[in-house]
């Protein structure tokens, strides 16, 4: 039955060429923007769900600045003692950076002493005694730093330190090999791999140069003049908000002449919130665009379909008088809508790829996976059918007597 109806629908559409083209064009644009917007949203959502590899809910950080290197040891001892005294604190350790906080040491590494085999630009986490354990990173091979692995920081990092690297980084540096006891060269010194951790994201995943979020290295280091002022606190997740509040107060009281960085002295959860704020805003904006766009398209379809129904009252009446059922009339408008939307979708897919190519060159976005196209198509087909339903029902309700009544 349906196949029989396509011919007359096509014939009618040919007589309304301009309107058909305009509405198909609108659907094509909507399809193209929809596919790309969904793709952008997926990218943002994926970025926001990055695994930090640390026990985020149980960790907080304190950052103080504005003191001299000569005061560092004394200040360090005072602040650590004050933080330890905060009820509910399970551990306090010195740390160089935390996930979603300010970046720590970022440097290029090479895989040979001569500096010929470039490994990449990676983030180094300085970790004082206890920090690795407090972070809760999962060791998958090798060992955690032993007490005598912690050496003072001379220039940015300790010299010839043992390090822990992530699984991703190990696979990147030495594919298929055992990374333990391998050596890395960076910052005029070299490092020996003693352990592999499952995950540890760089402090600012997704920001800066394109690289894997897990390109981090943990360097055990002894707090001292060149490594002071940043602390990692661990408490039970329920206590953490209060612990962080008390910890900030304790630091203000203990170190009144140093400056507490209130923005950075937060629970890791809060830092994560702030870090992805712009991504969340952008995601919401994209969703708003999609809703507005689908709404506009639906209204356009309703408007045009209503007009066609009104214009064809007599013809509908004639068909009804000649024996067409209400269902036939309803299906006629549904098929008509399906055909127009299909034309739009085909054009829209081509347009979607064109837009994606443009985005790829201008904004360095990856290629649009083909999987987004059927999603866009289905959404628009459903939208078209829903939008045409009301006008089509109105058409189906036209009585056969309309054929002989004047307009």
């Amino acid at each position, binding site marked *: 039955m349906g196949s029989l109806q396509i011919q007359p629908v096509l014939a009618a559409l040919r007589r309304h060429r*301009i*309107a058909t083209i*305009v*509405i198909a*064009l*609108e659907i094509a*644009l*909507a399809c*193209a*923007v929809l596919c790309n*917007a969904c793709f*952008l949203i997926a990218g943002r959502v994926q970025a926001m769900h990055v695994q930090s590899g640390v026990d985020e809910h149980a960790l907080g950080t304190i950052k103080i*600045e*504005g003191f*001299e*290197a000569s005061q560092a040891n004394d200040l360090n001892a005072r602040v650590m003692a004050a933080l330890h005294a905060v009820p509910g604190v399970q551990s306090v350790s010195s740390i160089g950076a935390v996930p979603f906080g300010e970046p720590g040491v970022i440097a290029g590494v090479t895989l040979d002493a001569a500096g010929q085999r470039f490994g990449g630009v990676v983030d180094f986490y300085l970790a004082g005694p206890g920090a690795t354990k407090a972070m809760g990173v999962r060791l998958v091979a090798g060992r955690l730093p032993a007490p005598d692995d912690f050496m003072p920081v001379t*220039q*940015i990092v300790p010299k010839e330190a043992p390090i822990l690297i992530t699984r991703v980084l190990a696979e990147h540096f030495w594919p298929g090999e055992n990374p333990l006891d391998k050596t890395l060269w960076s*910052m*005029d010194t070299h490092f020996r791999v003693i352990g592999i951790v499952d995950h540890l994201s760089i402090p600012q995943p997704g*920001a*800066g*140069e*394109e690289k894997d979020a897990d390109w981090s290295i943990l360097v055990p280091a002894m707090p001292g003049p*060149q490594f002071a002022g940043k602390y990692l606190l661990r408490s039970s997740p329920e206590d953490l908000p209060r612990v962080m509040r008390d910890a900030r107060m304790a630091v203000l009281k203990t170190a*009144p*002449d*140093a*400056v507490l*960085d209130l923005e950075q002295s937060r629970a890791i959860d809060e830092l994560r919130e702030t870090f992805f*704020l*712009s991504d969340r*805003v*952008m995601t919401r*904006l*994209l969703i708003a*665009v999609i809703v*507005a*766009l689908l709404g*506009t*398209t639906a*209204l*356009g379809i309703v*408007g*045009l379909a*209503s*007009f*066609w129904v*009104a*214009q064809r009252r007599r013809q509908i009446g004639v068909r009804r008088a000649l024996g067409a059922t209400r269902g036939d009339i309803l299906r006629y408008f549904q098929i008509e809508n399906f055909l127009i939307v299909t034309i739009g979708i085909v054009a829209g897919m081509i347009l979607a790829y064109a*837009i994606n190519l443009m*985005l790829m060159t*201008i*904004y*360095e976005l990856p290629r649009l996976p083909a999987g987004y196209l059927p999603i866009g198509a289905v959404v628009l087909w459903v939208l078209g059918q829903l939008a045409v339903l009301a006008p089509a029902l109105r058409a189906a309700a036209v009585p056969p007597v309309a054929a002989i009544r004047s*307009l």
Partner: protein
Amino acid sequence: MIRYYVELAVHSLRRNKVLTALMILAIAVGIGASMTTLTIMHLLSGDPLRGRSGQIFYPQLDANPDSKGRQPYDMLDYQSATDLWHAHRADRQALVVNSTIKLQAPGTRLPPLMQPMLSTTSDFFPMFAVPFRFGRSWSAEDDAAHARVAVISAELNDRLFAGENSVGRTVRLKNSDVRILGVLAPWRPSPLFYDVRGGRFASGDTSSFYGKPEGVITPFSTALEINDGNFQPFTCWTVPSTPGHLQNASCVWIALWVQLGDAAKVAAYRHFLDGYVAQQHALGRITRTDNTRMRSLTEWLDFNGVVPSEVKLQTSLAFAFLAICLCNVVGLLLAKFLRRGGEIGLRRAMGATRRAVFMQCLVEAGVIGVLGGIGGLFLTVLGLWLVRRQPLPYADFVHLDVSMFLVTFLISVGASLLAGLLPAARASLVEPALQLKVL
């Protein structure tokens, strides 16, 4: 005649209120979205130094002895920067270095705070036309004497001294007392052009280029002494031996801006720069003599891709959305005009020309455009208000200026006339006889 058409249009629009409202809404929403994003684009991609940015240049050279000949570093090492500055070959020249410093204001009850500090040389203020509310900037003699003086921003002055004239008062920067020589008037260059660098490593996330100017501005020579140990390099090719003290380190960390009045001076400075590099090459300090650049301010901003890709993306999205809205209006207008086929046929039969019918339809589209434009303007104001509430570095200066106000109306009316063109042409082709038969 036009008045008659407008009356006809209003009459016709009143007849089908829902359809009219739909069309106006479509235009208003499309215009609101596009104009919000376009206004932000306009604010972010504007010229931060109108009228003189063509005279401002940013010299770069490649001081890394192991250079692989890629783009030279975005900043200069201490020796190159100071050598070029001391030569005084440009009309004006300013060194720029950024650091963070602990600030205390004696006599106020404020706790010590960390402030971003800009350290530069005396030409900075006239070169970039920095406005002063109180006092003045320091002189070249102050630069030479490492004078303990500073200029503070209007914002910091408000915070420390409740906006009063603080010239002559003292602030403590780390361990040194410096005397306030001047207080800036509110100054908000967009982007903060003299601090722009490293944009190509930011993957388009460049909104930080639109932050506020530093609170404290001190002479370059003074800052190296009072904030010694707190200078961060842009990058290094060997690890500095004393952290935070970079004068003798293999690091780039200083920017040099020069003002060159005409093309001859630009050519002469390029020549001078090449000569300097060649001389340093002869001394064995620089290996690459062919890796020197001198971009104008505008070129430098382009090179750094200062407009955040987020903003560009939103603008493209908004215009795609406007196109969809316009398609919608075209479809609805087409339906509307053709539905009046009988009426148009009658007018044609009574002697109206095709031109007159076309004009009448176009005027109707224009009226929708004006109404949609008014709606769009409200939505733009609303959109910008929403943007101002976002945690963005440039949120504070987002506003609708007169030019964008006019652009909104032009785009709105233009877009709806464009949308009306096709339906009007179609309507004017209506055959009188055919329509009258139906009547």
